[in-house]
């Protein structure tokens, strides 16, 4: 009788240990998948942010080049509408970046200053202007300020 109950206990305890090991294994595997999933999301999000930063900087470079050509070259082929379109593209990328980064502010002052230096009175002012003019200096100053903005800095620490 005693032997039989001892056997039952051994049988059940073996079963319980196996079950605990199996459940623990499953829990650890699930935890591993959750951690992996989070890491993959973080990496994907960072890649999206970096890609959008690249697009924004390309857009900004193009806007700077077009504006300089428009104002400095006597026979510039850049139409006014191309500068407006490029500003629109740039603000679109910045909006996307702001949504991706969430915490960062939209660089309102820099964009406003760039638009002003590139397009204020661009229908009426006599061109070409001097490369040393205040307009060109301000344009280069504000485009660089935008490049230095926190929103456009790449970060690998996340």
């Amino acid at each position: 009788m005693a032997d039989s109950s001892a056997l039952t206990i051994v049988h059940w305890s073996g079963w319980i240990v196996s079950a605990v090991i199996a459940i623990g294994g499953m829990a650890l595997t699930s935890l591993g998948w959750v951690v992996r999933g989070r890491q993959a999301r973080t990496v994907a999000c960072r890649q999206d942010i970096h890609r959008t930063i690249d697009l924004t900087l390309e857009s900004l470079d193009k806007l700077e080049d077009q504006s300089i050509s428009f104002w400095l070259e006597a026979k510039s082929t850049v139409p006014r509408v191309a500068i407006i379109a490029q500003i629109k593209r740039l603000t679109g990328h910045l909006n996307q970046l702001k949504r991706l980064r969430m915490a960062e502010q939209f660089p309102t002052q820099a964009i406003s200053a760039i638009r002003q230096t590139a397009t204020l009175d661009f229908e009426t002012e006599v061109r070409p202007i001097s490369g040393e003019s205040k307009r060109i200096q301000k344009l280069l100053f504000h485009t660089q300020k935008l490049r230095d903005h926190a929103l456009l800095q790449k970060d690998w620490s996340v």
Partner: protein
Amino acid sequence: MKVLRVADFSEFPGPRYKALGPDSGEEFREDFLLPEIKKHQDQIQVDLDGTFGFGSSFLEEVFGGLVRAGVEPEYARAIARNLKSEEDPSLKDEISSYIEDSIEARKAS
């Protein structure tokens, strides 16, 4: 509050003056904004979203031009505060600066 969408005036806002081309800032101010201001004594919200984009000349002529056209400074400031511009939040700051410059110029003259 009356909402005035610039995109209903034109999806392609043009130059500063009527003489320079279609859909100008002068045209928007004279033929759309000022009549609405006269009609609706309460506040007006100008919605800047949905257009191709703006040159600064258009913006200056519309909003700086409001003060030059005799609109009270506080009313012009309220229009700047009520602007809707989700696509480009920088437009609000720029427009406010044109209104303030016009107010300063009016005081000085």
